[in-house]
């Protein structure tokens, strides 16, 4: 058995005295798409923030077989973990090209000078970004921004790509496009941890899934099995589930 890319044991996160996540256990195997679904306020974004080192947490975060507690964001980026945050956090007053280049900053700093080649690969995945390469990131449409955020993360050549609600605020057609791209990314070998409210789309492309409710894992399993689970159907898939 290969070691999982990411393994989380008994992770707890607190904001002051309020515990937002309780004893989370989660595993992402190499080359897999794992999705975490759940309602607003369940702690999905908090979970990604804690894994990425943006929030202090208790419990073990094991990345590529190594325990990563008390480690800074920058170090995790260098080790191959990237997060595309819910708010995208683009550099609005800089060009698309500069945004992408900065995605490769950590590798550049460690002497890897192939950012031009990586950018061509990103442009192959997102041809729209190539058309907009000189435009300022702040002038892009919502869908293009999301593409730029994912493209920028890919510039780091991550081993684990974490996506926080990539469908948020996007038109249905664009959401489909983004999910197609995420499914395609899997073929490049990168493991993906996908946090989504759009449960149906997420479960369709994921291998395994977790349902997060009020800070705890309520359900977990293969995504196909989850999609058929009556509790998931009722709560998250709603009417669409019955149509099936």
């Amino acid at each position: 058995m290969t070691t999982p890319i990411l393994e989380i044991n008994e992770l707890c996160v607190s904001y002051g005295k309020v515990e937002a996540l309780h004893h989370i256990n989660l595993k992402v195997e190499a080359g897999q798409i794992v999705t975490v679904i759940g309602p607003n306020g369940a702690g999905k974004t908090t979970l990604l923030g804690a894994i990425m080192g943006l929030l202090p947490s208790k419990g073990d975060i094991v990345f590529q077989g190594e325990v990563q507690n008390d480690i800074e964001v920058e170090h995790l980026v260098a080790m191959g973990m990237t997060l595309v945050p819910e708010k995208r956090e683009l550099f609005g007053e800089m060009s698309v090209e500069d945004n992408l280049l900065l995605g490769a900053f950590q590798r550049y700093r460690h002497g890897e000078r192939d950012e031009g080649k990586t950018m061509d690969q990103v442009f192959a995945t997102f041809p729209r970004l190539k058309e907009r390469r000189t435009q300022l990131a702040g002038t892009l449409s919502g869908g293009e921004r999301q593409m730029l955020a994912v493209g920028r993360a890919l510039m780091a050549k991550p081993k684990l790509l974490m996506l926080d609600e990539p469908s948020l605020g996007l038109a249905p057609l664009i959401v489909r496009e983004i999910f197609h791209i995420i499914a395609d990314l899997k073929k490049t070998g990168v493991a993906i941890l996908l946090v989504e409210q759009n449960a149906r789309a997420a479960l369709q492309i994921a291998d395994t899934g977790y349902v997060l409710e009020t800070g705890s894992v309520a359900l977990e399993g293969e995504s196909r099995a989850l999609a058929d689970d009556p509790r998931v159907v009722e709560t998250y898939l709603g009417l669409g589930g019955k149509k099936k």
Partner: protein
Amino acid sequence: MDLQIALLLGQDGIVNGAIYALLALALVLVFTVTRVIFIPQGEFVAYGALTLAAFQAGKTPGTLWLMLGAGVLVALIDTFKAVRSGSLVRLKRIVLWDLVLPGAVAGLVLWLEPGRLPLAAQVVLALAIVVPLGPMIYRLAYQPLAGASVLVLLIVSVAVHWALVGLGLLFFGAEGSRTTPFSDAQFNLGMLTINGQTLWVLGASAALIVALYLFFGRSLYGKALRATAINRVGARLMGISTTMAGKLTFTLAAMIGALSGILVAPITTVYYDTGFLVGLKGFVAAIIAGLVSYPLAAAGAILVGLLEAFSSFWASAFKEVIVFTLIIPVLIWRSLTSHHVEEEE
């Protein structure tokens, strides 16, 4: 006032304005990247000028010992942290940057007797002593509080400012110094006489501004600093650490400050506390630019320089008052015209 006086004052104003422009750029840079209002910026001006003057007087400048001491302190703190978190790989960098390099600079200064060297070599050595103080001060005073509010960081700045002024008095005494001009050339343009140092100040300022422009526009490190200024969280997620950005920014600020001091030292007598006023005038220019816009800061600095020159002619007793009063209409104008921009999305 006749035309000749006006031209003279204009020349004065533009030369001083060029220096204020450099300082204003440094202040804007430091504020946008680290949110620190860098009051000690002026101290680097005084340290740069007085370190060079000490060389020319055949003395060993006290800043040398300050740099060595700060290096040892930084090395101690960082070693302690590295040992506690078990990441011993960092030790090599610590020893190199905080002990070996400062030691090498000190050795060079003590061995070479800079007073007998050509001016260019003296300038390089003075910069080698003063510039490392920038990142060291960031490490000691600001890095532990990097996440604090702007107000807390401002209070730290006041403390650092007083500490550096006090040390300046200790190192250089209360007497002011002047250094030898970079060139004795004089040019006559009609009724206006321009001396070589004026051209040096203007040329060096312009060159430095172009260099900074290229650094921020072309190099990935420059872009990383801009990215940190635009979106701190986004930058961290790209692996641009706040600490690295802070140290790099303070290095640039120290370099700009020390170089400004070295440029003005032949024109004005620099005292241990001269930097404060010079820095504040740069600050007025930076405020005109709202602490964000580089071109506006440079333009504001020229305005400050001219205003100062002309008010020293008409009302010399009120020269500082007039310059600093400028801040009030500027703030009113800015608060009336600027609209709060919401975060995108």
